[in-house]
């Protein structure tokens, strides 16, 4: 049941790295006839020491903000060379995708290149030391949105990048989580069957940046989904066609409590408002996306 490993051992990722999991799963789904493009980020840094690359597929890292454009150029060249069987996939973190790379990504989506762009979302700039990104969950403490006597962490909502991708009228957009590998791999595979640009947002917890035990990467990822914080869905040609139902909706506290970045919310009563807001966010997701079917959760966090 194991296939040829395309993501070689010996990379320098942290133990329990969610980004590494996402990448391995992605490569299992794409197979070896693929060219992968990555922006700058953790994944790039820990995989690509000169002479010690762990990529067993052709891989290109340009800059932080241009993976979408590089992938476009690669795809255009393949088209001219008649090498259209070879797939082009980009994978980058939330910093390189939600923030600095959104221009190039939007350009790629607008032009409709045959590329699947995958954003592994670990909710902050982990490569440079856990600075907040526009993907950071509200009220998380990061090194540039630290919790303190006058701060409850990051104050702004998480950018809904998948919805922005969807607004480009591309044929396939999906969200996923490393906690559900089969679902994610199926989505990668499925994306490759569409003509045009595809975007997949995969949630990939980071034990170091979020502050949890390295064994819990998958567990934390699962909790994000089960609380309704990270809705898992799929859209084809602009319509949401599938959502992942949550069997038993869990209160957001279960997710937050295991992570150091939310510790300040529980340190005193001062965090109650924020906890309630986060629960409300989950409730809204559940309701809006229909994640719980008939069941709806109202957990009182006070």
């Amino acid at each position, binding site marked *: 049941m194991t296939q040829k490993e395309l993501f070689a051992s010996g990379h320098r990722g942290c133990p329990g790295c969610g980004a590494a999991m996402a990448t391995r799963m992605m490569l299992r789904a794409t197979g*070896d006839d693929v*060219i992968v493009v990555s922006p700058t980020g953790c994944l790039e840094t820990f995989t690509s020491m000169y002479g010690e690359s762990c990529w067993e597929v052709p891989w290109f890292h340009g*800059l932080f903000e241009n993976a979408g*454009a590089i992938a476009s*150029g690669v795809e*255009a060249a393949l088209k001219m060379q008649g090498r259209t069987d070879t797939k082009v996939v980009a994978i980058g973190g939330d910093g390189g995708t939600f923030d600095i790379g959104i221009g*190039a990504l939007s*350009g790629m989506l607008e032009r409709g290149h045959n590329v699947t762009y995958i954003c592994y979302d670990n909710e902050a700039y982990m490569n440079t030391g856990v600075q907040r990104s526009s993907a950071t969950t509200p009220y998380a403490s990061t090194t540039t949105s630290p919790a303190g006597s006058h701060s409850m962490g990051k104050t702004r909502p998480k950018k809904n990048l998948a919805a922005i991708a969807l607004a480009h009228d591309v044929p396939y957009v999906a969200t996923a989580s490393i906690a559900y590998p089969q679902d994610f791999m199926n989505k990668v595979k499925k994306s490759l069957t569409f003509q045009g640009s595809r975007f997949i947002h995969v949630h990939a917890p980071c034990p170091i940046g979020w502050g949890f035990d390295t064994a819990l990467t998958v567990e934390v990822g699962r909790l994000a989904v089960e609380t309704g914080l990270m809705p898992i869905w799929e859209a084809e040609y602009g319509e949401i066609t599938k959502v992942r139902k949550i069997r038993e909706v869990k209160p957001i506290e279960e997710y937050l409590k295991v992570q150091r970045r939310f510790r300040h919310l529980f340190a005193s009563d001062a965090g109650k408002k924020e906890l309630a807001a986060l629960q409300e966010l989950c409730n809204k997701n559940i309701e809006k996306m229909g994640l719980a079917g008939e069941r709806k959760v109202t957990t009182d966090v006070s």
Partner: protein
Amino acid sequence: MGKKAVIEGSMAIAIAVKQARPHVISAYPITPQTHIMEFLADFVANGELKTEYLRVDSEFSAASVAQGAVAAGSRAYTASASQGLLLMTEVLYNVAGMRLPMVLTGVNRSVGTPVNIQPDHQDTVLFRDTGMIQLYVEDAQEAYDAHVQAFRIAEDRDVLLPVLVCVDGWTISHTFEPVEVEEQEKIDAFLPPYKPLYHLDPKKPYTFGSISIDKDLMEFRYLHEEAIQGAKAKIEAIAREFEKTFGRYYGGLTQSYKTEDADIVFVAMGSIIGTLKEAVDELRAQGKKVGVLKVRSYRPFPVEEIRAALANAKVACVIDRAISIGFGAGPLTIDTQAALYGPNAPQVLPFYAGLGGKDVELKHVAEMVAKAEKAAAGEAVSAEPEYVNINWNLVS
């Protein structure tokens, strides 16, 4: 024989690019680069050119798309000017460091602020230390020829570097003049399809854009410098081969015009060379021993050629169309002075001319020569850069 006709400089460039048969062209508009990209778009629309022509979202993406295409094994082209080139800066360092042979046109235009759309070299000299090759051309014909040569130079296995062909905006890009356009078959013979050393291919999976730490970063820099120094001989050889094939030669790294017996030699780049040559002929008719040294390759910088060409000169008048603000001279002056440093070097007189499109007329050249003559005669003259054709009323 090619066909000679009066065409716009931008058209000459667009035809050269078309004849190079690039797989990918990425375009983002900026004045005065737009005509090149519009002509190329027309060629695609008419079926004259089969290429992936991508209208991208920024100059940053324009350079990146071309980079990705070259890495995938295709020939690629882009062009920009001024602020657009500046936006490409980070990408162009990356392309050069990765040793990817792409060709781009820098349609020279001043850099803001203040905003100005007219030509000078403030934009392209910025790329001095990127490790790209930079060629400056004198007229539309040379712009055509240099683009054909640029792909050959860039893709040479011993070079593998991006080439930035610098073309003065308006003065060349929007000027109509006679240009000889060669037959496609002859261009094809001169410029065979791109065969990459490394490219993105699942059959042989390479990693591009890897990390290098202190154990080998300096060594990679050594190889980069070695390649661009080695490119000097290639630039010359390819210019000579071009001459043999098409009968035109503009010099390799430099071109000397009546410098052999000259006491005063102008050192300059770009379209001002034509005016200087014209002035030299007029001044020689008056018995003045004046010549012009055209710096065609700004990077690699032709240190040896400059030393040789100026060996017998008394004064070198270096004309900069850019200022290294804060140094007190222009980049070409600084580099020329460094190249000439040593005993028996001619006196260097720096001039700023043509900044932001400020016109340079024959009379201004004569004024520069008058100053140089004083210096040549041993009279003390200021070595501070002189602002040619400046309106002192506006600054005093």
